[in-house]
């Protein structure tokens, strides 16, 4: 809790996640005001954001109204530093489904270098209909982006890491159970054959 008095903080309790940042980030549209389909790439101002802009203007703070108009850069980056960042279903899908809007908002020049995507794939990326469609687009993105960053030494390391984890997982979930099943079947066969 933060208590303000005479333009300074006079009480500060349970504040360890709060931080300081630039004006555009601090006063840009809060999450409760964002468009409903923000993470599907809708970057237009929501009705709540428009009301917030009007409220700031009525109260003589056109500078804060401007922050709401220009908040998208920071809102799009927030998941990379947020508390649910590390859940694959959280940030990665948000990032990928808003990726085109992200490139347009953060660095419009990067669009010219954009690899050519199948229009249908792009459509499904902006409005992923089903998990299968989304996964197909992710695979396409993965292949093309890997080509772009081919020389990055960290990428090779991470790929190897993923491969080893997959092998360990498949050994524990597929290979070992299968071996155990075959061992039991063989034991049973030998028992039956012995009886015969």
């Amino acid at each position, binding site marked *: 809790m933060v208590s303000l008095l005479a333009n300074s903080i006079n009480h500060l309790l349970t504040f360890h996640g709060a931080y300081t940042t630039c004006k555009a980030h601090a006063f840009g549209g*809060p999450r409760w005001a964002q468009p409903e389909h923000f993470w599907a790439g809708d970057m237009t101002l929501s009705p709540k954001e428009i009301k917030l802009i009007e409220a700031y203007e009525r109260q003589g703070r056109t500078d804060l109204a401007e922050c709401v108009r220009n908040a998208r850069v920071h809102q799009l980056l927030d998941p990379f530093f947020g508390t649910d960042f590390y859940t694959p279903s959280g940030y*990665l899908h948000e990032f990928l489904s808003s990726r085109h809007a992200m490139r347009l908002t953060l660095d419009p020049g*990067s669009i010219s270098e954009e690899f050519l995507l199948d229009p249908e794939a792009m459509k499904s990326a902006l409005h992923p209909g089903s998990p299968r469609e989304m996964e197909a687009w992710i695979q396409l993105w993965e292949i093309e982006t890997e080509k772009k960053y081919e020389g990055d030494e960290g990428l090779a390391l991470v790929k190897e890491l993923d491969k080893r984890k997959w092998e360990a997982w498949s050994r524990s979930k597929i290979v070992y159970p299968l071996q155990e099943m075959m061992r039991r079947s063989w034991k049973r066969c030998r028992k039956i054959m012995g009886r015969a």
Partner: protein
Amino acid sequence: MYEQLPGSPAHDLDDLSPEQLDRFIDTYAAEAIKISSVKFPAVGGLCLDDAGAITVGKMVDTRESSAAGCNHLGGPFKSTRERYLYQIEANMSAIKAGTLFRYGAHRAYLAHLEVRDLILGCAALQEDEQEFYLKHPDGTADNILIDGSGAVSALLDWEW
């Protein structure tokens, strides 16, 4: 403390009447204007210095899986751009070390490479920043208490 404060959590703002929503937004703007009167010299987390005064220090990592392998995310920083780039690099180091994104590390790393390039190319993040302001780490309506008219009575959970 939560129970001692007036009002109840706003939760779903779409449940408010048009009049309540207008009141909510007006009073929220008034609270934000009050917060904007307090300025800081850098980007970072809040802490107390040796004399007990509030100052800007390292950013606290509240995630279950710490990216940097410690309980902070660096700082103080001179700009938001510096903060973003530092933390992107910290995330990438943690992915390579296998401590962040234990599954799907390859995709996560690719996403970070792309985002790092976008931050480097972003003109808006290259603007000169002199003053910095307090930000709530979770801007959902769940952390806002409102009274029956929709007016904001408290902003909670700054520690999230």
